[in-house]
């Protein structure tokens, strides 16, 4: 392997680690909290949601990057970014849903219920906007999106595991539900603070 390509691989791994651990989308950046709280009752559903998000996020990063650099920028329509991106994501989710339904019914059955929810997952719109604002190239943008999605999956599956156990515990009445889940997420966020500074540029 030549030095240039080895450097490239190291760079990709660093971007992935940074997105998964140091800048975890849920626990550090606060994006996508709605599904984080809503779909984290069972490990199984949390995993399904994580996979669906990974799939859509990678696709959305690809398509929005192309839209930004080949449609919005040349035409000077930068101010339509928010509008264009949310429409791209909404139609992409719809398209993925129809495509999976026809081509892979088993995958559709396991992801199907979560797909419509992803349109309003702000982590998807967030990662596409951050990719553009940070001036990432196409490859970096997709790697960053995959890393972000893996970080999402990691955090939501961890929280689901804890919540499954917590069902058995004796939580004070007023703390039940969202309240105790948020406090649990806070403790997880402290643990993830330990990753800060793991990667120095």
């Amino acid at each position: 392997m030549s030095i240039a390509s080895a450097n490239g691989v190291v760079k990709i791994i660093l971007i992935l680690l940074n997105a998964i651990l140091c800048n975890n989308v849920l626990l550090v950046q606060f994006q996508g909290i709605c599904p984080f709280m809503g779909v984290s009752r069972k490990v199984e559903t949390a995993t399904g949601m994580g996979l669906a998000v990974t799939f859509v996020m990678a696709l959305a990063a690809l398509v929005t990057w192309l839209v930004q650099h080949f449609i919005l920028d040349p035409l000077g329509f930068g101010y339509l970014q928010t509008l264009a991106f949310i429409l791209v994501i909404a139609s992409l989710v719809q398209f993925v849903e129809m495509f999976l339904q026809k081509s892979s019914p088993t995958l559709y059955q396991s992801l199907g219920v979560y797909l419509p929810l992803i349109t309003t997952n702000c982590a998807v719109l967030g990662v596409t906007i951050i990719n553009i604002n940070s001036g990432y190239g196409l490859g970096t943008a997709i790697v960053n999106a995959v890393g972000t999605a893996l970080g999402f999956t990691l955090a939501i599956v961890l929280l689901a595991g804890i919540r499954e156990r917590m069902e058995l515990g004796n939580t004070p009445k007023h703390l039940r539900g969202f309240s105790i889940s948020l406090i649990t997420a806070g403790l997880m966020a402290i643990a993830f603070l330990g990753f800060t500074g793991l990667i120095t540029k």
Partner: protein
Amino acid sequence: MHGIIAENPTFRLVLGTCPTLATTISLINGFSMGIATMFVLVGSNVVISLLKNFIPEKVRIPAYIVVIATFVSIVQMVMQAFFLDLYNALGVFIPLIVVNCIILARAEAFAGKPENNVLASAVDGLGMGIGFTIALSLMGAFREIVGSGTLLGSPILGEGFAANAFKLFATPAGGFFTFGLFLALFNLVFDKIDSKRKARKEGV
């Protein structure tokens, strides 16, 4: 106007959690996020209420999103032009108002319903917006005082406290804790009110 307390979007309905956690590091950030969201809520509620007879049932969600995104772009441009510091502080969360579930929820549950006219929809958006702003300001004030020892930038608990503030509450983890504790507090208060009401009814 029951969006302010009884159906407070943040503490009672638990909608729009992302900006609630992310922008409440200080009172001014939380408050301006609340105001920005309120503007979008009122604007989109009014427009959707006006257009509801022309929007076909099947494409209503994409149509709502386009209306909401338009208002968000307006907010984004106005803030960039006149409040650049705030624009930079709130960052990606301004465009993310588009996917704030409160706005789509009110469009779907209130403004898009045939029985609600334009004025009622505007008032509904205003009530929800005020409720959201109050919630964010409360959390912002709490986190700023405890986490940085300041309020609106001035050290109200003395310089000594500001220097040794409980910094955890300024971090993301502190956001989760604050929100969780506020939720529990509201549950407690509403439970007390409910049981008092019940007791009074039984007494009569």
